[in-house]
Each structure stands twice: as structure tokens, then as C-alpha cells.
């Protein structure tokens, strides 16, 4: 292929572009990048200058960038070009590249169509069918990414696997949306006492919890021996038919399986809203006695070693415990449990049969009282506890019947009883079915209405023929109305008009662009109406609408999805911290970390805070658990709140948040390389090329005998490694003061060599086994020669070029919002946005939405 192009070039000298005639490349580049040396696999003497081959094009863009970034020619070269020479060659090469790209765009057109991501698909179905908890995302394979974003069309391939799953997912959704009952299910209200609920029995038996009567241990509660010493053990026995006022949890998961006190499947028999209320409080369990929730010595009983809770942080103050509610194992709500002060909380959930709701005692240890035969279970345990008095469940509540989802699909067609029907419909399995007196007319109307919603635009009568004919073909096979309609609906939900964004026409396309950007889902009635009247495209209206969407609760989807992709927060569970080195990591901390970053970024959007807040801020968004990790006193409770950064606490901006430290480490050790790449690409806007093949690896060691910095220095002695590492390691070194769970450190934690670790607490129970090892050195030197010692200095360096921070953020936001990579020609628009006065994140969102790149 390459040879053909070269041959063509020789034959047609007129193709030779202006910029390639300069002597620049011959003077400064050919020494290394010729046929013989061909460093980095680049031979400029034989690289065609015609840019119409994509690979050649990509190479020249790379040449442009490397010269522009000052990487090339290398600094160590004696023969270096003057800055005018560089400017000249870049200008000529740049305009050539732009010209080529525009030519290409003219002939092929710019892509403006892409399929939905699986997350967008789920959101869209949830909103379209009024099924707020429909779960179909994980039925699909994960979407590909382009430059880290799954919204980019190039990454959104489609295969037979998708087609199969679209059919299955649509089937699932339609079934959930249809209600086969002419009357609403009876709503009931019942107060449950936890000891009698589902999994609580296991918790009682395994000392995960104990029942109280009149504020004291239930008199009939007994400890029983099972088996003989030495392999025997003990269990807690309490007849669940007896009454108990309160259930005191002594370990986190409430029993051996650790998923909390669960309302098992049978509790939710019908779909609808359920109102829950419950009463909870915190305490300290002292061998059967109940004391205020003050931290102290924890003793599992008997010969096991006792350990101390985090007194260093909390002193003798009362500790606020936290309890969370999980729906199908996903943490959904958090509540504070105050010391000896029962508090009642309410929450509302949309549940369907099979959903499991559980209560999880976040702030307790993974393991509570021991059950070895020689011990005495809960009766010799000293430690924290969380009380759950009662849980009230009222539901299902359905404000209208049939529910919205049903009416949307079936209009006012009645639900009939199969037992009373003259002709029994074949395809209906249950007793009830949806009936239509005039199936064909009904179908025509319903399909049109459904298609317009699904396709996010008006639909011409001719367009629905595809779907009506599906309906008719099922009817022709003697199928019943409901069954035939479902197939037509399935076809609509599998059609390209639904699955591909950008198929809409005129302003409807803009309506979809905006709503998929901020809500990750289809436009609502107001947006569609503005599109219909042709007013949406006016800058003022577009701005008002952008604000409306940002102020809507659904904007949370943007906050979560964008930070998941931009900052890699979606990888939060990719690694689990080493239990020996980081026993202080727990699920509460993990959830709090995500909350912090999301809340911080949400505030940047809401209050239009400057992009400088990415690297520095006066306040933190923390709760009690994060305050404990960051060493900030007097922050109690689970709620994230804004706190002024106290003197001496080295935090501020997104770059020092625990979530970021976790996703850029592997759970055991931090690597300045990995974090350096993270900082470069996510914050500084510098692209790091992948490593060449056959690079020697660094063998992580946590014994406390060698630091990663020392290992890196050795690695960098390889001449072939030094170049890139000089660029990517320093930002990572600046973050060395933060460990893999986001704690601040002066020294590394080690498994073998080092001082005894004092004042740390294991969330699993037992003693802390790690040592305080070698000291941390967070100093470094940037390629530009700027030196820094620690995060503060480094932050100042970043702050000295706010424009670069803005450029990086705009680049990420544009990619996410447009679903396209920022191409070379697009850089002109990027620079135009960059040169606006605004630095506020909300302003930048508006700039992006108003940009021609967004409207494409």
C-alpha cells in the first residue's frame, strides 16, 4: 500500500505540498527519522506528504503535536530550530492538515449518528415506559470507549449480540410495564420487628445481633453450645415468634453472609411504591450492657486480643453511626444513628416482585463477637452496635390504576378475565389480558403514539407501516391483540430510529443532543414542543433550556456518568485494597469517596465555579467518614457538607480527593507512572503514548525495603525509558503523599520492615498488622525544569496556567457532549472557546451547547 502511494507521488510532483518543501524536516528530523534509523518507527524521508491516507494523516498530526509540545526535536540536540522556524512549519503543516480534513468531511460527511450506550438505553426505557428501576443495562456487553468516552460513535460498534439483547431487553421491559390485574393490589401496612425478619434469624444465631426487651437483653435469649471442644462453637438462640422491641446489630453485615438484614423476596409481592419508616440509634455494647456510643476498647471476648477504636480521632466524643438501605445489594440511602437517641426515618421506593431491601450497618466492624466454644459470644463482647427498633412497610401505593406504564402502552383498552372470555387467547399465560374491541384501529393509534415518543420526533403515517405490519402478521396467525402488539412495540424498540441518536430531523435532533448530554435520555415534552415550534435553536431559548435541564434532578446522571468517564470513577471497584496494608478501608468509605467527588463537581456546575477548582479549593465536600480519613475533627453524620479546609490539611480540588487516589492505584501500591498518566491525561491535557513493547516491569514490593521512587529511578536509567518517564512520572510523584485509599502519608505502609503502626483501626476487627516503613518523598522536577516538593508546590505550578486547565476540561467536555473526538480541524473551535473570558464550569457547558460542534 505504502509503495503505491510513494510511486504515485513520484509520478505527480504537483502533489507536493508547500510545507513539505521547507528544509525544516531535513535539517532537524531526518537524522533520527530516516530510512536507516527510523526512530520510534517513524521514517520521515519516506512518509508520503499526501494526507488522504488515514494512517499517513495520523502520523503527520502526531509530528505536528510533538513539535508543538516541544518534545521534538529532543532538548538534548545541539542543532535546534529557532522559534520562528517552528511557528512557520507548524502553520504550514497545520493548515494542510485542516484542508485535508475538511476535504474529507465534505466528501464523506461528518458523522452525526451513533447508537445509544447501554446506559442511555436503560435510562431511555426507564423514562419512556415509566419504569424508574428497570434494569437492562447489564444484559448488554460493556460499550467500547474512544479516548476514554463511551459516547463516541467510533467506539459504539454493534453486533448480533446487541440485536439479540435488544429483543430480550424490550421483551423484559414490556412485560414489566404491563399490569394484568383490573384492580389495584391491596395496599397493606405492617410494622416488622427485625429479629423476626428474613435473614435476621441468621444474624441472631451467629452473634451478628441480639434482641432487646424493655431496653435490656431479652430474658429468654440464650447462648447454646454446638458440638464438642475443640471444634465446637456457640450460637445465640431466640425464638423469633417471641416479641422483642429492638434488634442490636453487632457486626456490619448482620450475620455471616454480610449482606445486611434483608427483607427477602416474599415481602414484595406487587409492583408499586412502598413507604418505609424505621427507627434506629447507636450504642456501645458492653458485655450485655448498653452504653453511649463512645469509642473505646473492642474485645471480642476470651483469649482473642482486644483492639482500640479510633480514639485518636474521636477522643471521648459520642460517635454517630451510619446505617444504609440497599436495594438489590445497591446502596440507595444512608441514615445517621445517634447515640442512645432513637430517630425515625422515612423513605419511598418503587419496588417490584423479587426486589430485596436490606439494612446494612456501615459503621460497624465486618466481624463482631466470636463464637468459639470457649468464648461467650455477645455476652463477652465489648464494642460498637447499631439498634434497629422496628421497620414499617406500607404498600404498594399506586396513585393511579393501571399504572402509567400500562396506560402508555395500552391506552384505555380494558384488562379482561380469561376465565370469563368466550374465546381464550392462546398466547396469554396468566388469567388476565389486555383486550381491544377494534384491534386494528387501536394498533394504528397506539403504535403511532409509541413510535413518536420512542423516535423523539413526529412520525409520518407511512413510517409506521413497518410496525403495523408486524402486528397484522401476528393477528393473521390468530394471535391475540396483546401478544401481537408487544411484537410491534419490540420492533419499534429495535428499530434504528430508536437506537440511533442523530436520526431525528431539524430541531428535534438538537433536542435529543441536549437531553442525552445532560439527562442521558430522551427529551421531554417541553423540549419536543420547542423543537416543533422551531424555537429551540435560538441562543436564548437554548440557554434557558440548558439551565432547566441542569436544574432538574435527572442532571445527576450527567454528574455521575461524566465523572465516571472523565476521572475514571467508574473503576472505583476495579481493585480491592490489600487487607493487611489497608485494614481501615470499608464500604462506607468507598461510597463516601464517590459522593465527595460527585458532590464537589455538582457544586462546580451549580455555582459556576472556576475550572481552577479542579486543582485547588477552599472547601471540601465531606462527611464523617471522609473527615476521619482526612484527619478533620468535629464532622459528624453521613451527609456530605461543605467544610472549610482547616490549617495544615493538605487537601483541595479534585486532585486530592480519595476517589481519585483510589482509582489511580492498584489496591496495594501506588505507582507514580500510573498516577502520572492519570494526571497528564485527565487534568493537564497532555496525551501519553502507550509504552513500547518489551519494557521491563517494576516488581512491586511492600516489605518496606525499597520505595517505588528508588525502583523508578533504576527503571529510568534505561535510556529508552527515560524520555517518556521524564514527562509522565513527575505529576505522579507529586501525589505520592496520598496512599491507595486516599489517606495522607509521610511514610509508606509496609508488611515487614518498619515501626509499629499506632492509632490505626482495622475495619475487619483484630489488630493492625502493617508497619510504618520508608519515608515518602513527593518531590520532583517537570520536563520544563520547574521543581516542586509535594502537592502544594505542584498545585501552584498547575494554577499558574489556568488556561491549560480550561483547555483540558473543554476537551473532555466536548468529547462527552458531542459524542465525537475533537479532530484537528475542530481545534479551531476549541481555541475559540478557550479564548472566551469565562472559566466557570456552568459557563463552559453553555459555551459547548451553543457551539456549532455540538449542534452538528
Amino acid at each position, binding site marked *: 500500500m505504502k509503495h503505491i502511494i510513494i510511486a504515485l507521488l513520484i509520478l505527480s510532483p504537483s502533489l507536493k505540498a508547500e510545507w513539505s518543501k521547507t528544509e525544516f524536516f531535513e535539517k532537524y528530523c531526518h537524522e533520527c527519522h530516516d530510512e536507516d534509523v527510523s526512530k520510534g518507527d517513524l521514517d520521515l524521508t519516506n512518509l508520503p506528504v499526501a494526507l488522504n491516507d488515514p494512517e499517513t494523516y495520523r502520523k503527520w498530526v502526531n509530528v505536528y503535536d510533538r513539535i508543538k509540545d516541544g518534545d521534538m526535536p529532543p532538548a538534548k540536540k545541539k542543532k535546534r530550530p529557532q522559534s520562528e522556524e517552528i511557528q512557520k512549519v507548524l502553520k504550514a503543516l497545520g493548515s494542510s492538515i485542516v484542508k485535508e480534513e475538511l476535504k474529507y468531511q465534505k466528501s464523506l460527511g461528518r*458523522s452525526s449518528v451513533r447508537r445509544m450506550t447501554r446506559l442511555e438505553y436503560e435510562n431511555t426505557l426507564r423514562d419512556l415506559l415509566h419504569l424508574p428501576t428497570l434494569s437492562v443495562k447489564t444484559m448488554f456487553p460493556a460499550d467500547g470507549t474512544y479516548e476514554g468516552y463511551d459516547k463516541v460513535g467510533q467506539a459504539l460498534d454493534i453486533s448480533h*449480540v446487541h*440485536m439479540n439483547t435488544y429483543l430480550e431487553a424490550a421483551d423484559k421491559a414490556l412485560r414489566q410495564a404491563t399490569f394484568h390485574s383490573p384492580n389495584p393490589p391491596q395496599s397493606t401496612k405492617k410494622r416488622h420487628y427485625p429479629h423476626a425478619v428474613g435473614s435476621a434469624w441468621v444474624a441472631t444465631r451467629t452473634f451478628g445481633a441480639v434482641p432487646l426487651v424493655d431496653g435490656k437483653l431479652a430474658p429468654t435469649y440464650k447462648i447454646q453450645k454446638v458440638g464438642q471442644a475443640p471444634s465446637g462453637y456457640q450460637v445465640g438462640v431466640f425464638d423469633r415468634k417471641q416479641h422483642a422491641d429492638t434488634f442490636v446489630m453487632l457486626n456490619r453485615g448482620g450475620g455471616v453472609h454480610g449482606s445486611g438484614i434483608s427483607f427477602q423476596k416474599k415481602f414484595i409481592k406487587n409492583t408499586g411504591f412502598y413507604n418505609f419508616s424505621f427507627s434506629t440509634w447507636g450504642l456501645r455494647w458492653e458485655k450485655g450492657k448498653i452504653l453511649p456510643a463512645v469509642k473505646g476498647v473492642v474485645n471480642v471476648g476470651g483469649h482473642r486480643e482486644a483492639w482500640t477504636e479510633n480514639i485518636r480521632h474521636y477522643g471521648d466524643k459520642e460517635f454517630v453511626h451510619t446505617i444504609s438501605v440497599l436495594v438489590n445489594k445497591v446502596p440507595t440511602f444512608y441514615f445517621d444513628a445517634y447515640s442512645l437517641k432513637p430517630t425515625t426515618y422515612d423513605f419511598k421506593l418503587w419496588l417490584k416482585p423479587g426486589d430485596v431491601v436490606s439494612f446494612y450497618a456501615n459503621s460497624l466492624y465486618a466481624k463482631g463477637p466470636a463464637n468459639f466454644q470457649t468464648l461467650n459470644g455477645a455476652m463477652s463482647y465489648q464494642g460498637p452496635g447499631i439498634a434497629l427498633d422496628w421497620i414499617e412497610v406500607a404498600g404498594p401505593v399506586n396513585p393511579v390504576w393501571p399504572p402509567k406504564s400500562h396506560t402508555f402502552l395500552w391506552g384505555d383498552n380494558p384488562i379482561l378475565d380469561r376465565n370469563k372470555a368466550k374465546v381464550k387467547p392462546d398466547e396469554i399465560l396468566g388469567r388476565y389480558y389486555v383486550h381491544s374491541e377494534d384491534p386494528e384501529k387501536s394498533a394504528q393509534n397506539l403504535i403511532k403514539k409509541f413510535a413518536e415518543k420512542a423516535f423523539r420526533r413526529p412520525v409520518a403515517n407511512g413510517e409506521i407501516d413497518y410496525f403495523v405490519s408486524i402486528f397484522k402478521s401476528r393477528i393473521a396467525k390468530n394471535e391475540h391483540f396483546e401478544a401481537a402488539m408487544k411484537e410491534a412495540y419490540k420492533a419499534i424498540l429495535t428499530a434504528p430510529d430508536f437506537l440511533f441518536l442523530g436520526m431525528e430531523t431539524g430541531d428535534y435532533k438538537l433536542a435529543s443532543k441536549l437531553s442525552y448530554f445532560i439527562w442521558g435520555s430522551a427529551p421531554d415534552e417541553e423540549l419536543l414542543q420547542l423543537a416543533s415550534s422551531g424555537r429551540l435553536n435560538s441562543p436564548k431559548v437554548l440557554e434557558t433550556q440548558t439551565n432547566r435541564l441542569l436544574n432538574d434532578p435527572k442532571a445527576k446522571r450527567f454528574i455521575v456518568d461524566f465523572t465516571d468517564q472523565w476521572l475514571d470513577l467508574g473503576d472505583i471497584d476495579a481493585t480491592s485494597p490489600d487487607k493487611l496494608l489497608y485494614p481501615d478501608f470499608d464500604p462506607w468509605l468507598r461510597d463516601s469517596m464517590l459522593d465527595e467527588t460527585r458532590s464537589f463537581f455538582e457544586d462546580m456546575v451549580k455555582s459556576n465555579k472556576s475550572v481552577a477548582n479542579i486543582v485547588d479549593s477552599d472547601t471540601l465536600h465531606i462527611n464523617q467518614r471522609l473527615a476521619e480519613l482526612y484527619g478533620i475533627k468535629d464532622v459528624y453524620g453521613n451527609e456530605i457538607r461543605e467544610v472549610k479546609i482547616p490549617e495544615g490539611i493538605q487537601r483541595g480540588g479534585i486532585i486530592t480527593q480519595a476517589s481519585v487516589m483510589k482509582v489511580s492505584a492498584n489496591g496495594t501500591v501506588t505507582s507514580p507512572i500510573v498516577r502520572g498518566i492519570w494526571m497528564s491525561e485527565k487534568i493537564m491535557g497532555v496525551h501519553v503514548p502507550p509504552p513500547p513493547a518489551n519494557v521491563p516491569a517494576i516488581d512491586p514490593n511492600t516489605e518496606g525495603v525499597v520505595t517505588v521512587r528508588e525502583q523508578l529511578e533504576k527503571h529510568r536509567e534505561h535510556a529508552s525509558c527515560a524520555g517518556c518517564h521524564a514527562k509522565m512520572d513527575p505529576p505522579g510523584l507529586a501525589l505520592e503523599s496520598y496512599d491507595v485509599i486516599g489517606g495522607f502519608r509521610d511514610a509508606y505502609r509496609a508488611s515487614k520492615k518498619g515501626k509499629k503502626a499506632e492509632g490505626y483501626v482495622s475495619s475487619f476487627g483484630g489488630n493492625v498488622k502493617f508497619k510504618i516503613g520508608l519515608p515518602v518523598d513527593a518531590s520532583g522536577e517537570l520536563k520544563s525544569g520547574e521543581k516542586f516538593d509535594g502537592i502544594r508546590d505542584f498545585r501552584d505550578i498547575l494554577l499558574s496556567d489556568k488556561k491549560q486547565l480550561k483547555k483540558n476540561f473543554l476537551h473532555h467536555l466536548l468529547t462527552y457532549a458531542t459524542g465525537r473526538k475533537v479532530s484537528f480541524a475542530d481545534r479551531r473551535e476549541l481555541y475559540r472557546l478557550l479564548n472566551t473570558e469565562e472559566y466557570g464550569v456552568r459557563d463552559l457547558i453553555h459555551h459547548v451547547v451553543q457551539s456549532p460542534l455540538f449542534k452538528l
Partner: protein
Amino acid sequence: MNNFNFITGKSLSRRHFLKAAGISLGLPYISAMDAAVKKNSSVPYRMIGIETNLGIYPQSFFPKESGSNYTLSPYLNEIKEFKNDFTVFSGLSHGEVGGGHASDITFLTGAPHPESASFRNTISLDQAAADTIGLQTRFQSLPLNISKRGNKSLSWTRNGIMIPAERNAEKVFIKLFMQGKPEDVKRELRNLNSGRSILDAVGERSKALNKSLSKTDQQRLEQYYTSVREMEHRLQKSSEWAVKPKPKVNAQAPKNQEYLIDQMDVMFNLMHLALETDSTRLITLMMVIDGVFSHVKGVSDENHDLSHHTGRKQKIAQLNKVEAAQLQSIGRFMKKLKDSKIQDTNLLDSTMVLYGSNLGNGNNHITKNLPILLAGGGFKHGQHLAFDTKNNSPLSNVFLSMLHRLGVEADSFASSTGTIKGLEMV
């Protein structure tokens, strides 16, 4: 796009013909040919690809000597009775695959740079064969996984889409062996039929829409259209199979097990049944063993934690126990395959069992010098094929040899430079 030059899979190879002609000396020419055809098609080759995702402790896996006269390493000693039924490789890797854990999805594909933010996967080894040999069985291929959750898979389509793996053994068993009631079969056929007419309609719809789009967008719609057609074709095949009764097996539906080694045994039993009944000839098993506890004596820590032993002796000791137990489970599987006689051979001799990891070393995440074991499948085994542990040879060369063994006449696979040197077919 398509690097492969597929043949129909049923043609009679010259070598087979000569061999068959040799043993049928004296028979009329035509019946010798018949015998060869029969032999060739009645004992087809099969393939299983297994990846354990956290590396295998290299010091305990790789033998010290190379060639056929090598001493078994501690791990290989666990399957010593099959020494002549497997080949162990060292010095292999996928050229441009880096990225540590991210490489778990490229073990059977070899696609470069899985760590890149713009990564695109390519076709996996089993799928490259599925087009040719998959059509002869009820299931073209069977992607499975062992994991705490999710459907992560080693199997990937030609355009780089993951084919979700099933982790629920009971579900797979039902899919493979439980014969539905007549009305269930009727309903299934109805759904397959309806699915096809839906796909037909949306396929037509996409063709109609295509006209108004830019060329780039047309390509996206064309990919949609191709996928629609491919799924239609698959539903057609499923309809044909749906009317044929499922094979009967003398086994109970298995239950998923909580612990790693138990679950490996469950999956291996299932795979054995699938092969024995010729339900499929291509199986992949991705073992995503993070967070899965092992149920091995003397092991209390979690797998991922153990793989990052960071040099701690106590961790390495536990790691050795877990990994030895994995090899024992593989050994039990190999025995089952070997004990299953089919005509004049057995399942092991006609099934390639590839076992290995995407990581050469779980502690430092390096993706070079991968631990690779290939058992059965009609190769001359009993050797340690040692390649350069610094400048590795392509693992894809082994894959190309495997494709040829399956009767897929591909010229290359991923970064292969040819078939693997030193591995000969029987």
C-alpha cells in the same frame, strides 16, 4: 477485515485420505474414500480456551529444562499422569498487548493495547473457528465464566463486541439438556419466528433510512444491518434445532458453588457433558477469580490479594496452594475427557484444552512470558517448548496451529507469524 480463508470444513484433507487409504489397503478405492470421510467427520476436533485472570506464579509453573526430557515443575507435577498429553510453553505473549489486568479480554484475541482509552477488541480464537465448525452443532460456541458477578467473556465477535459469558451452571445445563414440554417448544418456535420477522422489518427500515445519511453514518447503519442479518440467520438455525430433541444426559442439573475450586469442578463437568453430547465444539472459560475464595486448606486470603504478594512469603505459600488446587481440578477434567471413549479415540485426544493467563506475573502485571499449557487435541505432546523469555514469540502462533487443527485454513491470526514451531499434529 477478514483475514481468514475459510474452507467448508467438511472436505477431506490429503493427509487424512492417504492415512485412511493406508489402513484400508485391499478395499476398493471408493470405499476407502468413504471410510476416510466417515473417520474425518465422526471424530471432529474441539477446542476449549481457559484463562485464569490473575497470573500463575511463574516460579512454580515453568519447568527449568526445555524439550521432552524436562523435570515437571511443582504445578505441573499435579497433573503428572498426563505428562505426555500436554505441552507447556514459555516465552510466549501477544506482541503489543500491555495494560496489566486490562489484558484479560485479549487473551484469546491478541488485540493490541487493551489499556488504551480508545481500545478496540478483535475476533477471538473460538469465534474465528465458529464460522466454520460452529454450524455443525446446536451451539456455535459456549462462552462461560467463573466470577462473582457479570458476564465477562473471552469470546469476541469480528467487530470487537463481547459475547457475554454465562456464569450460572444450572442455566447452561437447562439450555443444553432440558427438553421443554411440547407447548414450550411451540412457544419457543413462535418467539424465534416473531424475532425473525421483527429483524426483517427493522433491517428494511435501516435500508430505507440509509439513503439520507452521510457516508460515515451510512457505514454505522450498515453495521447495524449486517448484525440484523446475522441474528436472523442465527434465529433461523435455532428454529431448526428447536424441533430436534435435546440430548439426554445421565446427570443432575448442577448448582453454582461459592468457592473457586468447587466451581471449577462444576464448570468442567458441564463442559465435559457439552462435548460428550456434541452440543458444541468450542468452549471458552474466563476465570475472573478476584474476590472468589478458594476453599483450599491453609488459604485464608482472597485471590487478588494473594496475586499481589509483593514478595511476602506467607502470601506466596497460600498462592502456591490455590494454584496447585487449580491444576488438580484441570487434572480431574483431563481424566474425565480421557476416560470418555469415542470410537477408536477419546475426548481428550480430540479436544484441545488451552489453559493459561493473560498475566505473566500477577505481582507486577507484566503481560510477557505468559504461562501457557496446551493439552490433548491430537498434537504430539510431552514437552516444554521454551521460547525466548525476553523477546517473546507470538502466542498467536499457537492459536494458528490450533485453528489448523480444527480444520480452519486461516493464513494468520492476530499477530501470528506462522504456526508454532515444535508443535506437531499426531
